[in-house]
């Protein structure tokens, strides 16, 4: 039985194929990503999971020689249509990376605003309210509200990652992609991010790539398992981690070799 079946689809991915030059990295992937849910993508290194989420905000095509075929619809519109502006798309579909990457010398405040600055001028009071709101949603406000003019690089790793999340939230996206957002963090910082995901999913659709099966099982509603570019199994997280149907999923999540 599917959890929250009433949640409407955001992304409808149909027969998605992707290449790096001649290397075929995604093979005929179909997936439906729902609103207000966390979708976890798991699989061994090189299985195509990062490429998959980079197709969702058209970052894959930034790599020379990269190619995409198939269709990805976001709220009913094909994001690969010629009239779609990838820069605008990436405002709707934000991304948080593996390594916290704030601008180290830029202040905390300017880090939050950096995405917005690219798209136009901001008056001071709007800027202040955006900074506070984004930092609050990223669960960082209480820790930095008195030090907004300190450099982003002065924060701890976990705080830097939440600052990156605040920067993503500041441009008001509707989907957040996360590529192993906790792999460089300690368990406490990881728990904070996971706690934050539970809050954020009330307002956003979240897709997270993770190498930690435990993390996927804790934070996500649905899980997709990729192997050699194919989506092997996709379903309710509770089921995938207790009784997966495909032997390859079972072997991967229990740590077995052939």
């Amino acid at each position: 039985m599917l959890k929250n079946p009433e949640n409407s689809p955001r992304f409808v991915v149909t027969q998605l194929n992707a290449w790096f030059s001649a290397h075929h990295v995604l093979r005929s992937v179909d997936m439906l990503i729902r609103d207000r849910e966390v979708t976890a993508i798991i699989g061994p290194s090189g299985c195509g999971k990062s490429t998959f989420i980079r197709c969702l905000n058209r970052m894959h095509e930034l790599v020379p020689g990269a190619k995409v075929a198939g269709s990805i619809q976001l709220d009913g519109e094909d994001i690969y249509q010629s009239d779609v502006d990838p820069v605008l798309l990436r405002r709707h579909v934000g991304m948080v990376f593996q390594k916290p990457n704030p601008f180290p010398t830029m202040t905390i405040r300017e880090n939050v605003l950096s995405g917005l600055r690219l798209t136009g001028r901001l008056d001071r009071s709007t800027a202040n309210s955006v900074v506070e709101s984004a930092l609050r949603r990223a669960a960082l406000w209480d820790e930095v509200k008195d030090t907004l003019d300190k450099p982003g690089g002065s924060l701890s790793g976990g705080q830097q990652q939440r600052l990156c999340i605040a920067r993503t939230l500041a441009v008001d996206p509707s989907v957040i992609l996360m590529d192993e957002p906790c792999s460089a963090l300690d368990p406490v910082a990881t728990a904070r991010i996971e706690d934050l995901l539970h809050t954020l999913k009330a307002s956003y659709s979240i897709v997270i790539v993770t190498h930690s099966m435990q993390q996927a099982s804790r934070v996500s509603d649905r899980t997709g398992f990729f192997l050699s570019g194919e989506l092997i199994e996709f379903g309710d997280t509770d089921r995938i981690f207790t009784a997966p149907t495909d032997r390859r999923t079972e072997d991967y999540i229990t740590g077995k070799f052939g």
Partner: protein
Amino acid sequence: MSEQRKHTDRAYEQDLETLRQRLLMMAARVEGMIENSIRALVERDSELAHRTILSDRVVNRMEIEIDEMCLLILAKRQPLASDLRFIAYSMKMVTDLERIGDLAANVCERAIALNKEPMVKPLVGISRAAEIAEAMIGQAIDAFVKRDVERAQAVLDRDNEMDAMYRDVFKEWLLLMEGDPAVVDRGIQVQSVAKYLERIADHATNLAEQVIFMVAGRDVRHHGKLTAPVE
């Protein structure tokens, strides 16, 4: 039946194998206890009954050791999917096995009491019920070893046979007691033994249901009757 692949982490593979071996040792012990308890009763061997009661301590200790192993594996390995189901199964299995051990000890206690009195009649029905209970336990353990869902299902199918056998023995001895008040004490002891055997079969059913869950991830408890409205 499904062939098992090995874990990349060999220490983890070894932990799971050790757990499996311990469960089998405990199951073998418990099977032996049932067999001895019935022999003590049918062959009127009170010495064997006493020894069997004492051996229940070993089974109790095994229960605690296996539970500890399971907790450690959960803490250290955070098992998932079939491994998780195996650990969950093991923790339930030891409880059932331990209860079966207790019931075999209960049979021995009745045997000791009955052996002090003259025999009323040969315990044919009890012997038959004991055979069924033992066979069900044996089949459930075999299904566990071979990860065989069909064999586990066969155990579930025999539970009705056991229930019928229990009713027959109960009725037979009720009639005997009605006819001769002098056999009431012994009759009640024999009826208790029949009840213990019927309960042992219930535990065998639990073991078999858990094998199906462990192997196929399918919960067959309570025959899918949980959807019935609750009063």
